[in-house]
């Protein structure tokens, strides 16, 4: 017997996903619906010894009126019998404390004629809240079977499974019947019709609840008002928010430093191992210089990304994030953003990719677009290695300003600069973007909840996995491409590098000779030629062709910068101080002045602060805005601005 197909549907914040996790365990997969960016979660569950179910977790939705992408998906799956996900039975998950609103969706689902089960979640709260339900009459009025479940305490799940097994005995009759005659007479527009139908559905639900549901009003006051009083207080609210924010940053950078160093050295070790144990040849080189560092470049971001998802999912699960949105909305709106933009802007300090995906919650298209466009200005973790090495070159470690470490201050200034430019460009975009959009800002303020460890863990695992595979594919492909471009070159200069260098430098020892050959080869490889080609363009910024190569390669991903320079200055696997010393001693070929002067350093920092150098971000912006227009505009404007500021800075400072 084939699996029973089950669809889970429910309002946001009803614990639908917890229930899904309870039913399927880790036996689940997140994919995409074809052509759109809504996550599709499917899992398998054993109902009893003989029968199992394929469970699809539909996106959280308030209705089936298809006014958003998420709702659209639900409508398509449930109303089209030929859809591959069309279920045998639907489980509508509702929250016991807000049955009125939750049942609205239920009545709509019931209209579709699919066997439907009502799962009343958070049943563990019944006693606490003094809630009483007359199950029998509610079942008959709603034409269904009801399972009282608690995904938190893992109760009622086996009963729900039993109901699913018996799905054939469920009623397929709608429970709410509107009077079509009334409808067609008074109403002329589609919108008014919806409105009126909504009102009548609510009347129906009210009548059902009056007969079957009672709550002791004494238990109404709760945690909510108490916490709200503090968390969205005029002063304390902001104070708490900024304290939390600050702690998250601290944690992101200090906690992830250790695993990141570990990953870095492990992958360097893998490369060494590959070189040591495999026969010399093209494949070994590709593995050791292209593929392994490429994969390492993805894996190294896992700690930061995982921590970031951990914090954001705790903030969201607990209900706190909605309060922050509420606090910040008016302020953010002054800059053309929404209170909901705060989430992407914060996440952007780890990585712009998940940050841009988080902008989906913004209903207003203009606010969402501006958020997507400015988020890459926030200083992501990939810029950190670039900043670190350049700052250490142009500012002495012992420099102090008012007893603060100047290197540290400079780093902080770069973060503030990124954030400031994001806000400023949002303001400009707000002025110049002519988009007619209505302000549909509605945010639910959910009950405060202690986040369930299981839910948070699943979110972190799932999202990190998605990042590694989505972004990983691109970064890996580019690393391989870069390796090819740097390992091959046209003409004699490249193929006869060894002879030429040996002739020119007859008295070098073997190690020095090898280093010289490597850098000569690079100079004449495809990528070296590209660097030389763009040299006239970047010379006014204070860069030589070598920095040019690093700039080109870091259009793939910024963190490639340091690695590229390390290769170019042919220091290979030696320690960092050697790279730095080499950079410090580097001089322009014509003028013999040091390359990494203060002016060039500042110019590089500004360029990296503003330029759109990240293929994965471009790819994600293309996906989220459904076309090439915005990512291309974004790339040219950001990079143009970067070029301009770097140019001005260098010309003034040199």
């Amino acid at each position, binding site marked *: 017997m084939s699996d029973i197909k089950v669809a889970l549907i429910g309002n946001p914040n009803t614990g639908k996903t917890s229930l899904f996790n309870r039913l399927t365990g880790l036996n689940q997969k997140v994919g995409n619906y074809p052509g759109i960016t809504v996550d599709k979660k499917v899992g398998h569950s054993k109902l009893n010894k003989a029968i199992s179910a394929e469970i699809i977790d539909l996106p959280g939705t*308030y*209705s089936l*009126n298809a*006014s*958003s992408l998420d709702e659209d998906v639900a409508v398509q799956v449930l109303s089209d019998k030929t859809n591959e996900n069309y279920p045998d039975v639907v489980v509508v998950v509702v929250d016991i*404390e*807000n049955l*009125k*609103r939750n049942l*609205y969706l239920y009545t709509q689902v019931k209209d579709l004629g699919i066997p439907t089960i009502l799962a009343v979640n958070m049943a563990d709260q019944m006693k606490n809240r003094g809630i009483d339900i007359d199950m029998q009459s509610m079942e008959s009025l709603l034409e269904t079977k009801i399972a009282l479940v608690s995904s938190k305490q893992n109760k009622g799940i086996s009963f729900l499974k039993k109901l699913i097994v018996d799905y054939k005995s469920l009623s397929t009759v709608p429970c709410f019947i509107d009077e079509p005659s009334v409808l067609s007479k008074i109403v002329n*527009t589609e*919108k*008014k019709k*919806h*409105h009126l139908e*909504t*009102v009548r559905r*609510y009347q129906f639900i009210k009548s059902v609840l009056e007969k079957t549901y009672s709550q002791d009003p004494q238990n109404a006051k709760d945690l*909510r*008002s108490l916490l*709200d009083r503090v968390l*969205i207080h*005029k002063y304390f*609210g*902001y104070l708490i928010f900024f304290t939390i924010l600050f702690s998250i940053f601290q944690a992101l950078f200090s906690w992830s430093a250790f695993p990141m160093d570990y990953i870095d050295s492990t992958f360097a070790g893998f490369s060494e191992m590959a070189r040591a144990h495999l026969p010399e040849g093209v494949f070994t080189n590709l593995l050791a210089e292209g593929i392994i560092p490429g994969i390492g470049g993805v894996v190294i971001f896992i700690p930061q990304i995982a921590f970031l998802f951990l914090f954001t999912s705790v903030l969201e699960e607990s209900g706190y994030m*909605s309060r922050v*949105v*509420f*606090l910040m*909305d*008016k*302020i953010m709106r002054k800059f053309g953003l929404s*209170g909901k933009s705060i989430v992407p802007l914060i996440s952007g300090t780890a990585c712009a990719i998940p940050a841009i995906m988080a902008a989906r919650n913004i*209903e207003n298209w203009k606010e969402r677009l501006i958020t997507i466009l400015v988020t890459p200005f926030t200083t992501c973790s990939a810029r950190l290695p670039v900043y670190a090495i350049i700052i250490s070159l142009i500012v002495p470690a012992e420099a102090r300003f008012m007893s603060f470490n100047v290197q540290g201050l400079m780093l902080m200034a770069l973060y503030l600069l990124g954030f400031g430019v994001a806000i400023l460009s949002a303001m400009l975009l707000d002025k110049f973007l002519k988009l007619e959009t*209505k*302000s*549909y*800002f*509605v*945010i*639910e*303020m*959910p*009950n405060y909840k202690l986040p369930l460890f299981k839910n948070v863990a699943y979110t972190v695992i799932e999202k990190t996995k998605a990042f590694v595979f989505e972004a990983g594919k691109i970064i890996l492909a580019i690393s391989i491409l870069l390796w090819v471009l740097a390992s091959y070159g046209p003409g004699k200069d490249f193929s006869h590098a060894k002879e030429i260098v040996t002739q020119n430098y007859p008295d070098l020892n073997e190690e020095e000779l090898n280093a010289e050959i490597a850098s000569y080869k690079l100079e004449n490889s495809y990528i070296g030629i590209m660097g030389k080609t763009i040299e006239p363009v970047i010379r006014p910024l204070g860069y030589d062709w070598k920095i040019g190569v690093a700039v080109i390669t870091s259009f793939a991903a910024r963190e490639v910068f340091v690695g590229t320079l390390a290769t170019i200055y042919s220091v290979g696997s030696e320690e960092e101080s050697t790279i730095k010393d080499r950079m410090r001693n580097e001089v322009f070929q014509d003028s013999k002045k040091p390359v990494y002067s203060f002016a060039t350093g500042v110019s590089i920092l500004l360029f990296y602060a503003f330029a759109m150098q990240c293929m994965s971000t471009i790819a994600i912006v293309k996906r989220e805005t459904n076309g090439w227009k915005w990512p291309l505009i974004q790339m040219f404007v950001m990079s143009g601005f970067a070029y301009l500021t770097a140019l001005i800075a260098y010309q003034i400072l040199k």
Partner: protein
Amino acid sequence: MKGSTIASLQKGERAIIKSFEGIDVPLKLIEMGCIEGNYVEVLQRAPLKDPIYLNISGTYLAIRIEVASKIMVERL
């Protein structure tokens, strides 16, 4: 009292939703229970007066003044 909207309610005031001025009220809000006859209570205004945090018939949500000023109510 004529002319009252959700935007004109004070913190802690309760009212009954009467009608919608214009059709600019988002459908999502209506689906969340913001319909004629339901009660609404202003729980709090954000520190800069906007948005407004409401309890509409048991659903807790926040909306901007722009929308709140289009929802006519009768004070209780």
